């Protein structure tokens, strides 16, 4: 096998060894349940408090506004379902977008089945929410605006501050799914008027299976996971101490490195984009060129299908992902690519490469070199390409 070139950091990231080292004592030694009253549990308690503080720090929140969950999906479900329940008497209308993660979209569909009304906003061809359409969508019954901070497929960063302002002016709660943005771009819940925010540990080189929900003081939502009195009685379940510690540490590292990360990784990203655009014909960059996650590259290559591309990249040790139907496990290609206006056959040929601060220039260059060969090989066996060339001739 070749050396591993991991360019799927939007799917999950490598747990940083520094993070693992901080987690380690909480597995077999400091294993006490933080809810216990004996002093053996003091370390666990202090560790959870510290992590809460590290995370609050990254987004300008107060410690007691951070609630630990099992991941981004749970946080998204919690935000939407509990808001719908708590603010039912105020209204039944929720505004979101067509390019949200399924954790939001499927939850919205579930809410529709419970009698809620959901508006799914269109986005422009770069994946940006149209603010005037957002304003127009607001009704007297609107209780929540849930718009992602950054898209997981095409990397587009939404205008959070402006959305927050609109929400605030209309006295509507604003939730943002920041799973891809948290630790990757600067977010400040006060400056951006964010009332609730979802994030996940494993997207920032922290552990899997842990996430957070930021809930602004004063937001009156109840629990999603009912049970014990953990997390100020808002989220039941024995604290997952090692993972919480890991997410805290990862957040702190992300904060410390944010400037450097942004600079280095977006430079690599731009190099990758430039080489592909220059060297591979019939390719198209997806997502906004400027308002873009530092680590996201997403292209469509015409006449070929994403899964075959991935397998051939895999043969060369390169890990990427695609929005093709074959890889999404459904018959349609990515709803995000369709929402930005791509026809199905183009969307099937998408490739997402997402970098990290562990990615090197050599890896990026090697990837482009191999990608070029792969794409011309696949085109040479594509009936679509055959027809296209025949027409051109």
């Amino acid at each position, binding site marked *: 096998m070749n050396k591993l070139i991991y360019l799927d950091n939007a799917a999950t990231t490598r747990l940083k060894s520094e993070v693992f080292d901080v987690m380690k004592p909480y597995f077999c030694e400091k294993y006490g349940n933080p809810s216990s009253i004996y002093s053996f549990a003091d370390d666990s308690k202090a560790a959870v408090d510290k992590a809460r503080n590290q995370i609050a720090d990254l987004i300008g929140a107060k410690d007691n506004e951070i609630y630990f969950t099992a991941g981004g999906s749970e946080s998204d479900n919690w935000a939407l379902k509990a808001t719908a329940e708590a603010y039912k008497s105020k209204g039944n209308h929720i505004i979101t977008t067509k390019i949200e993660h399924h954790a939001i979209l499927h939850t919205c569909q579930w809410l529709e089945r419970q009698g809620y009304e959901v508006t799914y906003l269109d986005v422009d061809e770069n994946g940006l929410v149209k603010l005037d359409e957002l304003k127009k969508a607001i009704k007297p019954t609107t209780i929540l605006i849930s718009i992602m901070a950054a898209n997981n497929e095409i990397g587009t960063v939404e205008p959070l501050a402006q959305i927050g302002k609109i929400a605030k002016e209309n006295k509507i709660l604003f939730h943002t799914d920041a799973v891809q943005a948290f630790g990757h771009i600067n977010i400040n819940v006060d400056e951006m008027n964010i009332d609730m925010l979802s994030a996940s540990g494993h997207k920032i080189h922290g552990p899997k299976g842990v996430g957070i929900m930021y809930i602004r003081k004063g937001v009156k939502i109840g629990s999603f996971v009912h049970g014990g009195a953990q997390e100020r009685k808002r989220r039941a379940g024995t604290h997952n101490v090692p993972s919480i510690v890991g997410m805290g540490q990862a957040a702190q590292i992300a904060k410390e490195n944010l400037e450097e990360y942004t600079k280095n990784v977006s430079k690599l990203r731009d190099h990758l984009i430039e080489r592909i655009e220059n060297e591979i014909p019939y390719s198209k960059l997806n997502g906004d060129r400027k308002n873009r996650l530092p680590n996201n590259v997403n292209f469509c290559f015409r*006449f*070929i*299908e*994403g*899964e*075959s591309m991935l*397998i*051939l990249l895999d*043969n060369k040790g390169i890990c990427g992902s695609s929005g*093709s*139907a*074959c890889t999404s*496990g459904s*018959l349609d*290609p990515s709803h995000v690519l369709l929402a930005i206006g791509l*026809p*199905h*056959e183009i969307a*099937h040929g998408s490739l997402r490469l997402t970098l990290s601060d562990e990615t090197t220039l050599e890896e990026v260059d090697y990837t482009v070199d191999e990608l070029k060969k792969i794409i011309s090989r696949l085109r*040479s*066996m*594509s*009936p*679509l*390409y*055959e027809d296209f060339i025949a027409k051109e001739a």
Partner: protein
Amino acid sequence: MYSEKVMDHFNNPRNVGEIEDASGVGTVGNAKCGDIMRMYLKIDDNGVIQEAKFKTFGCGAAVATSSISTEMVTGKTIQEALEVTNKAVMEALDGLPPVKVHCSLLAEEAIHAALWDYAEKNGIKIEGLEKPKADISEGEEEEDY
């Protein structure tokens, strides 16, 4: 996810390409669904398939089923080729993941479409062969993840 056989046929597909003077050509699937298979057959006067080639836009399973079905029909009579069903293709590949079963259907349809084209060109009727659907329907409910 894929068997070794599938990976072998995907990585080293047999009979990729076109046959200039094909006896029959069939194209099935559609780009919207992400799978298009085009099969070229060269059939001799005795109704034996001398050569088969393909071009495919699609996933690993689509390429592998195309590849193996060109092998499976080569040397067969038309009637024998009709027995190269999606089941036979799947078995020859040591199985496909549940979500990929439709690819083997596509291969079966591609053979049928190429034979239909051959029959039309030659004004004959092949027993047991129906006009291929314009599109491949997708009835399977995904059981696994």
